[in-house]
């Protein structure tokens, strides 16, 4: 069977080509792309009435390359060949499509439910056009946990309601003594059907929804959505606008990193560091408010638009960076805390690569992945910060160094900023952009890739000729990173699980959608 060169296909957007394949050719094509160094960015299914269409988006950095493989399946009996043997993330995307669209992956090694819990009735696929309102819940479907048996093995069920105010997730720990044999994380308690909510909204008027995909990642999801819409509508933002957006993104990185560095110390019982990290976070939130008018940076970025109220003071940011560095130094200087962090829950480089991990989780396992370099919207002086050890300490130190690097990047962005607001309407932006002009009546697609503080966020949208969103597929880095937690917990004891979980600090809402 012949395999196309990677970048063959119709140009459909920025750095992006698309190829339509017969379903049977998909595994070979995907395998050749993986060999070329591509990763699977997302898989999105679409209901086109009589047929279902599945788009596989493959991404590679340096230079920015985006390849879409598209297959069409009959809606009555949709089946496709699994890519599970080539890519672990693909196997999970297939389970998601099975649950939401009823597309059956053939020969899937783990054909269980993923998104829909047991009480969702079989045969009802919420993302299909004719799905209608949710039917009443039933108990008909089984969704059991794998039971670990043996002498002295017992199960600890934790959540979805926890003792602290955190997001809902159920963890089933199979334990002997205090050692964890197996952890199963069951998520999707906070599945809101947010992708469905995008359908039918005006393409330039859905930013409020994108900002609420995961509250602590408002700016990055808002930006990824905006980039996707701009890609689809052919809006080209000037470079200074991209720099302002990068500034907002870095502010989001700062306040989240600061809060989590304190929270990690707190989970080791060192609440002194947490109290100070919370103080620093509060000051950062006030800077956010002064910069964008919103403490969580909402409203500054929207399709074709970026608007700041003021620029942050770089000296104040440098002060806070020095302050946080001192708190972190106190934390790591405490031998007990250092002992708790060191060697706890190691995620090896190979494991991180096989699972497709992103963001600081991947970088703390020695994988240099950063969308600011791989898929840049504007050239920025960024270098990925990595650590080869893959333990809690590595994730702590990577984020600590990223905080300092972000502060330096912000100082650079602030010093080069001039105008505080940019607006580009679809009509004027489309001048010179060939893609949108060539097919004014067709369905247009767009992809937005952003390095949020957790890692690479990918949005892919489709817009109908009237400018309404037909489909929005969202992938938060948490989707890729969640499976890494059970893997890293091998040889870890139960009381270290909360520390591990906090060191990954993945989004439940961003994963569950």
């Amino acid at each position: 069977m012949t395999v196309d060169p990677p970048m063959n296909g119709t140009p459909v957007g920025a750095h992006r080509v698309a190829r339509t394949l017969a379903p049977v050719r998909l595994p070979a094509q995907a395998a050749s792309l993986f060999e070329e160094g591509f990763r699977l960015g997302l898989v999105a299914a679409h209901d086109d009435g009589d047929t279902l269409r599945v788009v596989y988006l493959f991404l590679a950095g340096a230079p920015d390359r985006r390849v879409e493989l598209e297959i069409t399946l009959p809606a009555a009996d949709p089946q496709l060949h699994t890519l599970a043997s080539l890519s672990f993330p693909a196997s999970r995307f297939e389970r998601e499509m099975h649950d939401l669209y009823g597309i059956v992956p053939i020969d899937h090694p783990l054909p269980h439910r993923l998104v829909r819990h047991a009480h969702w009735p079989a045969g009802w696929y919420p993302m299909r056009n004719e799905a209608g309102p949710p039917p009443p819940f039933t108990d008909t479907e089984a969704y059991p946990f794998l039971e670990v048996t043996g002498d002295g093995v017992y199960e600890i069920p934790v959540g979805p309601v926890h003792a602290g105010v955190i997001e809902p997730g159920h963890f089933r720990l199979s334990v002997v003594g205090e050692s964890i044999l197996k952890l199963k994380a069951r998520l999707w308690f906070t599945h809101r059907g947010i992708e469905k909510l995008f359908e039918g909204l005006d393409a330039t008027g859905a930013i409020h929804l994108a900002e609420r995909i995961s509250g602590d990642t408002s700016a990055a999801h808002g930006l990824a959505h905006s980039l996707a819409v701009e890609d689809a509508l052919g809006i080209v933002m000037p470079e200074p606008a991209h720099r302002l957006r990068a500034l907002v993104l870095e502010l989001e990185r700062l306040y989240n990193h600061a809060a989590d560095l304190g929270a990690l110390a707190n989970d080791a019982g060192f609440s002194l560091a947490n109290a100070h990290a919370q103080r620093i976070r509060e000051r950062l939130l006030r800077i956010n408010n002064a910069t964008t008018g919103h403490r969580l940076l909402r409203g500054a970025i929207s399709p074709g638009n970026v608007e700041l109220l003021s620029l942050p003071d770089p000296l104040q940011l440098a002060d806070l960076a020095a302050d946080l560095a001192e708190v972190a130094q106190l934390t790591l200087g405490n031998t007990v805390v250092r002992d708790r962090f060191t060697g706890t829950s190691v995620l090896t480089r190979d494991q991180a690569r096989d699972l497709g991990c992103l963001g600081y989780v991947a970088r703390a396992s020695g994988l240099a992945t950063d969308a600011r370099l791989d898929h840049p919207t504007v050239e920025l002086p960024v270098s990925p910060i990595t650590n080869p050890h893959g333990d809690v300490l590595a994730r702590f130190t990577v984020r600590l160094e990223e905080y300092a690097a972000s502060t330096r990047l912000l100082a650079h962005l602030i010093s080069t900023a001039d105008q505080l607001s940019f607006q580009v309407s679809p009509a004027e932006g489309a001048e010179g952009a060939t893609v949108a002009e060539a097919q004014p009546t067709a369905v247009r697609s767009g992809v937005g890739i952003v390095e949020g503080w957790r890692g690479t966020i990918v949005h892919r949208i489709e817009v109908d000729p009237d400018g309404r969103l037909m489909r929005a597929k969202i992938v938060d880095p948490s989707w890729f990173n969640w499976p890494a937690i059970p893997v890293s917990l091998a040889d870890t004891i139960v009381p270290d699980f909360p520390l591990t979980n906090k060191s990954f600090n993945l989004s439940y809402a961003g994963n569950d959608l």
Partner: protein
Amino acid sequence: MSALAVAAAALQVVGVLAGAPLVVGGMRQVRARLEGRAGGGIGQPWRDLRKQLRKQQITPSGTTVVFALAPAVVAGSTLLIAAIVPLIALGSPLDSAADLFGVVGLLFLGTVALTLAGIDTGTAFGGMGSSREITIAALVEPTILLAVFALSVPGGSANLAAIVAATANHPEQLVSPGSLLAFVALAIVIIAETGRLPVDNPSTHLELTMIHEAMILEYAGPKLALVEWASGMRLTVLLGLVANLFMPWGIAGSDPSFLAVLIGLVAITVKVVVLAGLLAAGEVFIAKLRLFRVPELLAGSFLLALLAVTASYFLGTPTS
């Protein structure tokens, strides 16, 4: 035995009852202030107790009399300890029972009652907390015994009042190696016994890391209030006992005057407040040990206690 000695013993019990939540609140306040937080105020544990006591009693289905009685056993045994240990005055009406073996036994009775209640709930957390608590208790109780035993060598008696009286009469013994080693060993095991950092974190919300809190996770309302009150009282009594074993000054004699009882009350209050403040201040700078390091710490304290006993025998000067 004078009526005042009986009154002093009663005052000890009432003082521990009323003062324990204030000790807990004071320690939280010290931590909060040192960490740069405002804190809930010294009276917050009392307000929490009032709230809990007004709540409806809820009992998890499937639990037995073990679960229902455990809070009363813990509180009762702690109050009994409060009545017999010399805090305000030496001449307790229960003096003949004020034996260090009796006190350690009563402490262990409370611990066992709570661990059984944790298992009785049948939840994973209850069992997990009980398993961890009993692991720690198994190392803590012998250390307390040994440490107080080392202190009893110079006085020639295991009676707590006799030990305190001997120390008060011969304060130079305090700087003996045996006494110092015993103090360090006792301080470590009291931190472990009362579930403080670095062994347990009383303020954590992470259910998987809990020890004491995991056992009592199923308690609510008045029973929870009783358990929390009792754990505050254990802390207070143990701090008071350590204070008087090593700093017996101010304690009233076995046949006290009214003024002596008053002085004794003030003295023990000051000592407990200072010790609690120091403990809370120290906690600000330490973190929680990895669970499997806790036995190392406790084994170390046991060794210190053992050395204390040895040192008391070989280096101590008999005084009687």
